[in-house]
């Protein structure tokens, strides 16, 4: 029930390199920037979250997504910038006074309390009358389907049930912002899918703003209204799931979103007048009008580029003039589709082939070692400059 604004948020961990330096090589965990002040874990993070929006922070481990969330929670000090919840500056406000709730990866339930006591605890601290506490706890328990476990201790529950209790403890408070730090990472694959669906349902039922951290791009795509993709403490792109999938801002985003990963080729972008074509292996790829216009708007010149194509956008064909040729190296059967790893153009190319088309015809005749031809259109290619940035941006 609140807007959250993160303006130029920064997190710097003071340097301990001097001490470590004596023992040997300075330990560098990742590609985080190191300045005179210390290690920059989050750098210049800007995000305006609307009321009731579901924002997902996603990125590889160590990218600063959890740190950002913990700064919003107040568990981590903010080194620079402004954090506003509901228009109020809360940089120096204690976690308990921020009117937020948080769900942790490790559930963080109070082991000595029953499920009911766990869920009632934040309300008790707020001095809510007992009958109201009971009503709210029962209501939340019903939403999450944990009514029958209310009198049990957390250790008598399974992982999925524990996580429900943790979510229950967070929602009984009706917080302004609900923070979730990889809540599904400790669950097995099946349960994770199930809980993901439940979070989507939950989201429709309660009026609150969500901030959700995950390293799983599927979770990010399915849950988020908007996704924030981070790497090495810096925001790479902010956008709706469709936007980041269709128009990745740079090589990192294009590779992070989408499974299997995008294929990359070393190619050339050729500009003739106001017309652009991509050249790969001597073959010309016509670029779609929409992309042409954007390239022109940025006045992009001819240059060497990295050309990206998603595996699902590559089509297999018989022989043809403008086809690329490859040999099937590995074939991974997924049921509804087959992932083919081709040796082509001196590299590995992944292609997704549906096993059955709409007419019910099976395409299961491709074997390892087969030579096949493939192609892709100019509307599905992504053009990245030498610095890794998408040339359309």
């Amino acid at each position: 029930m609140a807007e959250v604004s993160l303006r130029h948020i920064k997190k710097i961990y003071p340097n301990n390199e001097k001490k470590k330096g004596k023992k040997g090589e300075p330990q560098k965990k990742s590609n985080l920037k190191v300045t005179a002040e210390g290690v920059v874990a989050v750098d210049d993070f800007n995000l305006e979250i609307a009321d009731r929006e579901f924002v997902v922070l996603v990125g590889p481990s160590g990218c600063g997504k959890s740190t950002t969330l913990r700064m919003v929670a107040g568990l981590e000090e903010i080194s620079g910038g402004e954090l506003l919840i509901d228009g109020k500056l809360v940089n120096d406000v204690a976690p308990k006074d921020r009117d937020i709730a948080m769900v942790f990866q490790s559930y963080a339930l109070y082991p000595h309390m029953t499920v009911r006591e766990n869920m009632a605890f934040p309300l008790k601290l707020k001095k809510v009358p007992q009958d109201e506490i009971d009503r709210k706890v029962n209501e939340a328990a019903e939403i999450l389907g944990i009514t029958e476990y209310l009198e049990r201790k957390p250790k008598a529950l399974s992982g999925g049930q524990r996580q429900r209790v943790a979510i229950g403890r967070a929602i009984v408070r009706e917080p302004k912002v609900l923070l979730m730090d990889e809540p599904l990472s400790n669950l097995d694959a099946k349960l994770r899918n199930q809980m993901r669906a439940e979070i989507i349902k939950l989201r429709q039922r309660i009026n609150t703003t969500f901030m959700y951290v995950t390293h799983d791009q599927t979770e990010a795509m399915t849950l988020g209204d908007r996704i924030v993709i981070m790497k090495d403490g810096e925001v790479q792109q902010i956008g709706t799931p469709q936007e980041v999938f269709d128009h990745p801002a740079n090589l990192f985003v294009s590779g992070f979103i989408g499974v299997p990963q995008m294929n990359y080729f070393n190619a050339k972008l050729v500009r003739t007048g106001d017309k652009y074509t991509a050249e790969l292996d001597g073959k010309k790829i016509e670029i779609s009008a929409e992309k042409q216009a954007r390239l022109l708007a940025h006045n992009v010149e001819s240059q060497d580029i990295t050309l990206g194509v998603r595996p699902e956008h590559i089509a297999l064909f018989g022989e043809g003039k403008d086809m690329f040729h490859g040999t099937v190296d590995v074939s991974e059967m997924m049921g509804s589709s087959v992932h083919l790893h081709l040796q082509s153009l001196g590299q590995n190319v992944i292609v997704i082939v549906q096993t059955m088309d709409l007419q019910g015809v099976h395409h299961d005749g491709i074997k390892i070692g087969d030579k096949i031809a493939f192609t892709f259109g100019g509307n599905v290619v992504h053009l990245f400059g030498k610095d890794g940035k998408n040339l359309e941006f």
Partner: protein
Amino acid sequence: MNKNTLSAENRTKTLLSVVLGIICVIYVLPVLAVVINSFKLNTYVKSDTFAIPTGEMYAGFSNFIKGMTFGNYPFWKSVAFSAFITIVSTALILLFTSMAAWYIARVNSKFCKTIYYLCVFSMVVPFQMVMYTLSKTADTLKLNTPWTIPIVYLGFGAGLAIFMFVGFVKSIPIEIEEAASIDGCGPLRTYFSVVFPMLKPTMISVGILEIMWVWNDYLLPYLVLDINEYRTIPIHIQYLKGSYGTVDLGATMALILLSIIPVIIFYLACQKHIIKGVAAGAVKG
């Protein structure tokens, strides 16, 4: 595995059982001697130490009555002082060291590390090394009464207790405390509502160790307390000696038996928790 190695293994096992059995007997023997001799007439204690008290040796409960009424210092007073000192000292140790350990485990600073290593170091310093300066200090600071001696015990007990508590707190995921702070707890509330209940297994094991130590301790109260006014049970037993060094061994044994009964009962009742508590810090739950 063939038969030979199997039988070799069995032989080793048998040998080990015998050796451990003998060690057990050696440990139990003094306790057994105390039990037997507390029911024996004084004159037979020295001559027939390990004989079962039958016939003319059997003294019934006369040793117990004699021990409790001997001298001009009432036995119940010693029991009361012992009980008071033990309970208050243990309570102080549990409360303060668990709080301190929580702080040491959670705040990563040089100060905390120093305190922690000082505490660990204090465990290896033998009491005899510091006892004279200690008794002098205790006198100066007026810590030489049963009402104040728990503070001295707090100091001596802190080393082991902090060591054990720190080990356990480190195994508690910090997210639980973070969740508490988001749910609306300040530090004190977090400690009493969340951390304290989670420390229960370690509380019990530290409590048992401290209770057994304080209850049985002889040297510290002997050095610190004014013996004419305040006696604990071990000191009381020591004063069963007559003026010319004559000792009523039967009565002494009887009182020793009385004094160890509570400890044994207590230990048996809490045995399960001791093992649990000691292991609790070791394995991440």
